[in-house]
């Protein structure tokens, strides 16, 4: 087990180094940092002096190490368009994205799992067919289109919910939250559904197919033969084993929810990191792009690692495989 943990940690570290290399290449070679920082009237000597000060004339390896060193200390340089430290810009917007992502992840789990279980237990009922059709639409509909349709229906036509922004937020130390005010909660509904719908469809389909597989196994037949009531067979035995792979996917999906938040945040003008990143892409603001890349990579790799370790902790079959390997 320990060897497995160490191996996974080394792998995670390797991924981070590769991503850091890409971020560094972007930062250093795409666009000239000096040109972005000074005006046209700056003379060649002053530019050279600035280059020297910034360490742009050092060997590339030294620069890379310097880059990693600053990144570890959350120093990603200043944004070209805002002329502010990138880390401040990201820190401002981080809570908005995290709240949106966690809420939609919960939404997709809370609705996706029961729908999947139902569709597996009553395979031919019309409600299951309805769930399956809806999930196929949910997978095919692009996120931005879902958002626009929801805005059109609930904000433009019915005036029930706001179509943009976060509503009123409350500051709790460095964290700002919209979960404590009425307008904040109302503002969260449409973006949360938009972002969670795809995941909901995915989780529902996964739970359904896993549950159908599990219901075919011998230990379920044995449990039935022992005369256990359906409720215990389904929820005590079958569901428990269904949820192991679901947990993995759900963990990984949290990562992609954070990335897909870029689209949802744009549609709803949600003041989060995704919107910041998109503006950076449009304006070729490289420091923000590379910082966002590093941050998202870090979140992904951490989630991956936790999921892998949990997986081994929960499923005894994997532990045995590991011991033999």
């Amino acid at each position, binding site marked *: 087990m320990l060897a497995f943990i160490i191996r996974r940690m080394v792998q995670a570290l390797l991924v981070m180094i590769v991503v850091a290399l890409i971020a560094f290449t972007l930062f250093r070679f795409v666009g000239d940092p000096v040109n972005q920082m000074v005006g046209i009237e700056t003379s060649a000597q002053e530019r050279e002096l600035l280059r020297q000060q910034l360490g742009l004339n050092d060997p590339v390896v030294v620069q890379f190490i310097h880059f990693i060193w600053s990144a570890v200390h959350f120093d990603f340089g200043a944004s070209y368009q805002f002329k502010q430290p990138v880390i401040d810009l990201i820190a401002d917007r981080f809570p908005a994205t995290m709240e949106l992502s966690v809420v939609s992840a919960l939404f997709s789990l809370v609705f996706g799992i029961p729908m999947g279980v139902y569709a597996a237990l009553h395979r031919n009922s019309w409600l299951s067919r309805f769930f399956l059709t809806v999930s196929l639409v949910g997978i095919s509909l692009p996120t931005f289109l879902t958002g*626009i349709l929801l805005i059109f229906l609930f904000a433009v036509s019915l005036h029930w919910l706001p179509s943009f922004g976060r509503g009123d937020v409350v500051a709790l130390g460095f964290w700002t939250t919209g979960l404590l005010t009425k307008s904040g909660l109302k503002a969260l509904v449409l973006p949360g559904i938009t972002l969670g719908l795809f995941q909901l469809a995915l989780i529902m389909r996964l739970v359904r197919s896993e549950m159908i597989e599990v219901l075919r196994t011998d230990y379920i037949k044995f449990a039935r033969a022992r005369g256990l009531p359906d409720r215990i067979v389904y929820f005590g035995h079958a569901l428990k084993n269904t949820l192991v792979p679901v947990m993995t996917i759900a963990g990984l999906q949290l990562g992609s929810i954070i990335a897909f938040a870029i*689209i949802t945040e744009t549609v709803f003008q949600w003041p989060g990191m995704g919107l910041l990143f*998109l503006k950076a892409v449009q304006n070729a603001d490289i420091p923000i792009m590379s910082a966002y890349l590093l941050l998202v990579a870090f979140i992904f790799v951490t989630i991956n690692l936790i999921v892998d370790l949990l997986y081994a902790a929960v499923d005894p079959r994997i532990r045995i495989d590991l011991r033999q390997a």
Partner: protein
Amino acid sequence: MSAEQGASLSLTPRRRWLSRLLDSDIAFSFWQSKLTVFAAAVALVIVLGAMLAPWIAPQNPFDLKTLCLLNSHVPPAWQKGGDLHFLLGTDDQGRDVLSTILYGSRLSLAIGIMSVAFAAVLGITLGLIAGYAGGSVDALIMRAADVQLTFPAILIALLIDGTAHALFGQYRDESATIWVLVLSVGLSFWVQYARTVRGLTFVERNKDYVLAARLIGIRPGLILVRHILPNVIGPVLVIVTINLALAIILEATLSFLGVGLSPTQPSLGTMIRIGNNFLFAGEWWIAIFPGITLAALALSVNLLGDWLRDALNPKLR
């Protein structure tokens, strides 16, 4: 007599090919599923409309001469103030929405197909090489795939697009935008092909026919293309169909986010982006009709992909 014979000779194999296709299990399972037939019909209508756009569209939305600002913001024909010339209404520049949808699906489909082809060729090549060579080459390619798989396609496409922006500046010409899109969508999808093909190649390379080919001294490149490739291509076709829907959605998303095609060259995503600005003014038709087209296209291609996966899966037969 000879002419007659020639005609019958050329006809026979063709008829055989056709009747073999019509009698096959795949064709049977196709006609069995009403949903699949329906999806195929929808996809066919959209593809035909896109291909025939220059002949059937009432207006050429790329031709500025035919546009008139006086005709802008016209609602669909059945609404008050509608005009029969503009069946689905017009946008803010007086472009007929129906025509723009026809031309837009043309661009969306073309970019989708090109980027899937690019991803498939790249992925298959790398997968074949990784699976056949093994060792450190394999490790290198697959680790690169692992790293990329950690990130969702949308993020990678955005990064590539942003980098291209920074490298070439804002003043790129129109056709370059299309290639940047193809590149960014294509590069974010190659991993799936590489993984699948590598796994299959791994199995195939130790089979007798490959050993025989190696024994008689055929070059590895030729073995890969002529002998192994035909045996691993089946599952790839399924990925291609499912990826096509994803690629069309990804292109639309990028265009919607404003990093894809420019407003003068509207794909479906660009149109939805333009229409989104007028949604609150009550002009819903500019965004909603292209949106429906996009959703119908993606859904029908997805359904076809689902069907193909089940039809080609021997376990389910």
